[in-house]
């Protein structure tokens, strides 16, 4: 049994004293409600009636034939309400916040998907909502900024540091330390101080549970041979991985953002290149220099543009249970176009990193093997940015 909040050496609660009671309050509430019948039932109803769960497992037949190897299935988290897996965790945390008597939600967002999901839940539950987003991300994901405003949320542009996801997390932590009596911090990734990595994983684990059943149904009761997901902080990936951790035959493959390449200084491939550190409340791997200054990371994908990774991923990496591979901007953009043309599905640029790696390995796998790609989000939000990447002067 691990010490609570630890995954091997990783995890923990490295936050200012001001926040400790809020974390304990959250821990207590989560322990109380995670198995509470009424709570679980209400969340299940929200998942089905509001979020459109279970999400489909789609056999990508054309892609399978074209690549000529493993059978490829797509776990369609992109078909969830709000367009990504983020809604799973947000509905869970918002329900928890409501039980705790909180009336205000705050959240960080990178690509804007988590911000949109939080703004959506706040609208549904009649709560106040403030979303912190780095200036660079508000520019490359302008459509999501407007969506959040439309949903009644306030979007605060973060101008400090690298003006991306890391800085949005900093600002949200600062805001939470200022006002916690009525405010819950809906952390969107499987990162941060305990109990967040556990809470986020548990609410996202619905992805893996459904996948197990759906693969079994489609493939005569068998398990997949490989499960592939993109990893920024790592919430969709831990959500689909966690179900299969005990099944040693299932390869778990996380795809990190390699940006311009891991041999350049423009990437966010934390497990491929990073070192152990302590930041954002957790011990884990980080992109940093030898003095412990957090590196200014880069990815075409705002959702993967983060210099750390969730502590459970660091543990899966240390133990060798999961593999982590770098995928460049170029590979992801190619996969984005490929899936759009081959299957008529436009994937989020984040999820495109997982698609790209599947395109690499599927051809070399036996035809009766099964690969599941977690298609964590849809790509509508990325269309203008991809057009610009391809040299077209398109703005939303």
């Amino acid at each position, binding site marked *: 049994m691990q010490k609570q909040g630890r995954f091997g050496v990783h995890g923990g609660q490295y936050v200012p*004293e*001001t926040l400790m*009671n809020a974390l304990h309050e959250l821990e207590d509430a989560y322990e109380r409600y995670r198995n509470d019948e009424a709570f679980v039932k209400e969340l299940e109803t929200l998942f089905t009636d509001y979020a459109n769960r279970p999400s489909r497992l789609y056999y990508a037949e054309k892609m399978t034939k074209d690549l000529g190897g493993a059978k490829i299935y797509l776990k369609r988290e992109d078909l969830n309400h709000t367009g990504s897996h983020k809604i799973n965790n947000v509905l869970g945390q918002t329900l928890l916040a409501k039980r705790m008597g909180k009336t205000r939600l705050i959240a960080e967002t990178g690509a804007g998907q988590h911000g949109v999901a939080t703004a959506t839940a706040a609208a549904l539950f009649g709560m106040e909502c403030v979303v912190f987003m780095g200036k660079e991300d508000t520019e490359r994901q302008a459509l999501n900024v407007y969506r959040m405003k439309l949903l009644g949320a306030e979007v605060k542009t973060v101008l400090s540091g690298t003006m991306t996801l890391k800085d949005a997390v900093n600002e949200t932590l600062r805001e939470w*330390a200022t006002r916690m009596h009525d405010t819950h911090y809906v952390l969107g990734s499987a990162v941060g101080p305990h109990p967040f990595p556990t809470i986020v994983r548990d609410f996202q684990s619905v992805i893996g549970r459904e996948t197990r059943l759906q693969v079994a149904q489609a493939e005569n009761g068998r398990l997949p041979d490989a499960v592939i997901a993109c990893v920024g902080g790592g919430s969709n990936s831990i959500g689909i991985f966690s179900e299969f951790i005990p099944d040693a035959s299932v390869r778990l493959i996380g795809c990190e953002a390699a940006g311009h390449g891991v041999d350049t200084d423009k990437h966010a491939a934390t497990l491929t290149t990073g070192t152990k550190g*302590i930041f954002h409340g957790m011990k884990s791997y980080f992109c940093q220099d030898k003095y412990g200054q*957090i590196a200014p990371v880069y990815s075409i994908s705002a959702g993967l543009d983060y210099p750390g990774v969730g502590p459970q991923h660091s543990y899966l990496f240390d133990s060798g249970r999961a593999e982590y591979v770098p995928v460049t901007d170029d590979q992801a953009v190619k996969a984005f176009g490929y899936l759009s043309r081959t299957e008529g599905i436009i994937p989020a640029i984040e999820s495109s990193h997982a698609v790209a790696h599947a395109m690499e390995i599927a051809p070399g796998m036996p035809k009766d093997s099964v690969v599941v790609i977690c298609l964590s989000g849809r790509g509508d939000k990325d269309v203008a940015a991809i057009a610009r990447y391809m040299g077209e002067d398109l703005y939303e």
Partner: protein
Amino acid sequence: MNRIARAFEGKKAFIPFITAGDPSPEITEKLIYALEKAGADLIEIGVPFSDPVAEGPVIEAANARALSAGFTTDTLFELMLRIRKNTQIPIVFLTYLNPVFTYGAESFMRQTAECGVDALIVPDMPPEENDELAPLCAKYGVITIPLVAPTSGKRIKSIAAGAQGFVYCVSSMGVTGMREKLTADIRETVSAVKSVKEIPCAVGFGITTPEQAREMAAVADGVIVGSAIVNIIAQHGENCVKPVAEYAEAMKRAING
């Protein structure tokens, strides 16, 4: 008597904070001598970090200035060795955990002790995570100063029981930065600490004016002033030593007046 105890001996301690390397190591050195001359009883030195989550915008900007000028932890230790030859004023480092952990906690702690720094304040190391540094602190004779926040409540008891040096009482919710009003009931916090252990209590976060300093000194054993000083440094750059010294003298008078 160790240097920290001396800071609180028979007087209310004035504890100014500056960020090391802001705007340059040379100015940091001059500021330390000037602050001592102006009446500082203990000096808190911020170790620059890229992502100081407990800081407001003023000190965050100071961290960024120091780092972008090329200041590193190695520069810091060289600077502190030099300074220790010229002054015996008690000095504590304020550092986030990552610059200690990633540099190598053992090496960081050994050099901290070698350059005569008396204690560490680690804002992202709550008592639950003390094990991270405790064995090395014991080995090298460096203490860590605990923080007590307005939200600490029942936690104060165990924090105070394990405290050494002094207790850093956080005056307000949120992050560091200049405030017009200090919100926490410091008198109550201080008495909660002292009901467990007779240890000096210094108040920080937001203290800007001599009036606020006087008010805080009336209920605590020391007053920590950070953002207000760092703000003067930001405004005056290389020419900050004189205005910082003048401000420090005024604050010192208010505290001991």
